[in-house]
């Protein structure tokens, strides 16, 4: 990437390699010095008219770039973004030819950036474009405002295909000197949902569990997935307030272990869809979308997860009565 690159926006599902790509890009732009990063806990005092706001945030920086998760600052994210960009504009690095260079600001999870912060980027991206280039990174570009998107070169990073995952696994196997039975890496790839991170992780787990590998070795799902699968079968078996109460405890357990509620909901839907009739599939997937939306708007995830389970129970019970009397 030469000097005249526009701002960049990388988007794509998680595990598709956006971070890796960005790091590689920085290395190519600035050489090895981009690797010399230090982690800092930075403090900002922002003057907001009547009061000053204290913001603390962890940044990762080298002489050429700064990386941060602005959404960690919550509703004060826009102050952080503005302060950093202005700071960067002030201390511009001098390149080898004595010209003033630019710094790169890597912002992760821009889809979680507040609307105000995104808006505040619009003119900033134009105004400071000589001194600062932005690299934005997010899962879904739908959540990035059009105004920001149209100021960036949009780079879609797709998830690797199963074939590509297999190749990587075999490559790792070779490097580590492991014997892979035929079809083994294929099965891991199949269960990975096209996430390379996930595939490598379960590869590692398999290695710990049993080596040499056998061709029919079980590739165990993650603990939490198993847990969700148990929830699914338990609500298939019985639809009652008592069961709902039990499920509630399990959902709490998952939430406490920091599994994001929308991930739980999607996984639960996945498990339910496996066993449902076509007509019910339409209905249940509709309610999943409905409650996930509510969950975003609300504050207490558990209410909405529970409501979805209750809805499922009621629909499924109605179906059973209609079909079997």
């Amino acid at each position, binding site marked *: 990437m030469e000097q*005249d690159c526009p701002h960049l926006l990388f988007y794509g599902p998680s595990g598709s390699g956006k971070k890796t790509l960005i790091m590689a890009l920085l290395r190519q732009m600035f050489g090895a010095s981009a690797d010399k990063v230090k982690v800092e806990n930075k403090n900002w005092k922002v003057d*907001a008219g009547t009061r000053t706001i204290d913001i603390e945030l962890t940044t990762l920086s080298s002489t050429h770039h700064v990386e941060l998760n602005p959404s960690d600052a919550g509703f004060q994210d826009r102050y952080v973004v503005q302060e950093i960009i202005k700071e960067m504009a002030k201390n511009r690095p001098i390149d080898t030819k004595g010209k003033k260079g630019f710094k790169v600001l890597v912002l992760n999870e821009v889809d979680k950036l507040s609307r105000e912060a995104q808006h505040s980027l619009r003119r900033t991206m134009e105004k400071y*474009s000589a001194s600062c280039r932005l690299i934005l990174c997010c899962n879904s*570009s739908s959540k990035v405002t059009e*105004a920001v998107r149209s*100021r960036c070169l949009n780079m879609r990073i797709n998830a690797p295909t199963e074939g590509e995952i297999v190749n990587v696994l075999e490559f790792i196997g070779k490097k580590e000197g492991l014997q892979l039975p035929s079809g083994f890496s294929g099965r891991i790839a199949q269960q990975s949902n096209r996430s390379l991170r996930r595939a490598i992780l379960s590869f590692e787990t398999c290695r710990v569990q049993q080596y040499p590998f056998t061709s029919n070795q079980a590739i165990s799902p993650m603990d939490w997935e198993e847990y969700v699968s148990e929830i699914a079968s338990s609500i298939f078996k019985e639809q009652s307030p008592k069961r709902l109460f039990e499920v509630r405890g399990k959902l709490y357990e998952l939430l406490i272990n920091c599994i994001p509620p929308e991930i739980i909901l999607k996984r639960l839907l996945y498990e339910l*869809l496996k066993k449902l009739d076509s007509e019910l599939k339409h209905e249940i997937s509709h309610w999943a979308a409905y409650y996930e939306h509510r969950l975003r708007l609300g504050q207490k995830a558990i209410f909405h997860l529970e409501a979805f389970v209750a809805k499922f129970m009621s629909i499924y019970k109605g179906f059973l009565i209609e079909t079997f009397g």
Partner: protein
Amino acid sequence: MAPVLQSSQPWVEKYRPRQVKDVAHQDEVVRVLTNTLETTNCPHMLFYGPPGTGKTTTALAIAHQLFGPELYKSRVLELNASDDRGINVVRTKIKNFAAVAVGSARHGGYPCPPYKIIILDEADSMTEDAQACLMPCGAPWRHTQKLQDSSSFVITSAGIIGMGMSLITGPIIEPLASRCAKFRFKPLTEEIMSSRILYISKEEGLNLDSEALSTLSAISQGDLRRAITYLQSAARLFGSSISSKDLISVSGVIPGDVVQALFSACRNGNFDMADKEVKNVIAEGYPVSQMLSQLYDVIVESDDISDEQKARICKKFAEADKCLVDGADEYLQLLDVASNIMRAISNMPQECSFGS
């Protein structure tokens, strides 16, 4: 890769017109401002219109042409969404700025009229707290009056407010809007876009055939900023010969066959097949909002779907769009839309049959 001219600026900045007369297609405002340059009479102005049509460009150009580089800093205050525009900040900044009186000596060949200019760019981005934030923006006017009473200087602050589409219809800014000369910035026509793009291509040494040119105009929908960004992106990725396909690939438009695959899966009526396609769209990283708008076009143009079915589907599109804006999960929303298309096409009842 063929060499591309190097420059440290994104092209959008590099090719921003510096003079009012170079702003294309916005004849009315250009006429008024050209007049301003002669008479130095500058009304309060409100620029509104879709993105990338020259609002910021025009505001900056007139300010520069009136005051020149030397006086610019002391005479022009540019506040945009990136500055903190809370009530107090706006009030103090504008007050401090307007409080210092200025004379009217010509300076370095620029007209330098005896007033200051305040540019409130992107006033619309304050949608949510607009009420709180925009009203104090009226301050310069009130403030000016007070200053006129208490001091012997006559000061006028000219305010230029640039904003995007959204707010002009809202009731909030009425008191503000009524004190301004309003200028609507029109989306640029294909010819204007093409000629501007051709000019940039020539400057940068790019090769663009006529098909690529018309594709670029079409996908940027009257937004010149977008067109220029796409052009630069394509030049970076594909070198100096740019085809229509290259432009589509940098524009984020989803390839037709991907949209068709999802649509045929829905037509087929098999839930699992549709689910698989939806999963694929997500894994490929296509933005669902984009998918919805392209799918929408396909459905509206289909001859074999009845109006009633179309209406049913469109209603769902609207709901999903709103949910996405609220931050709902893309997979679940697209799956729900797909399921609704299936049910509409096969005339399944809209209401759920078992849930109560």
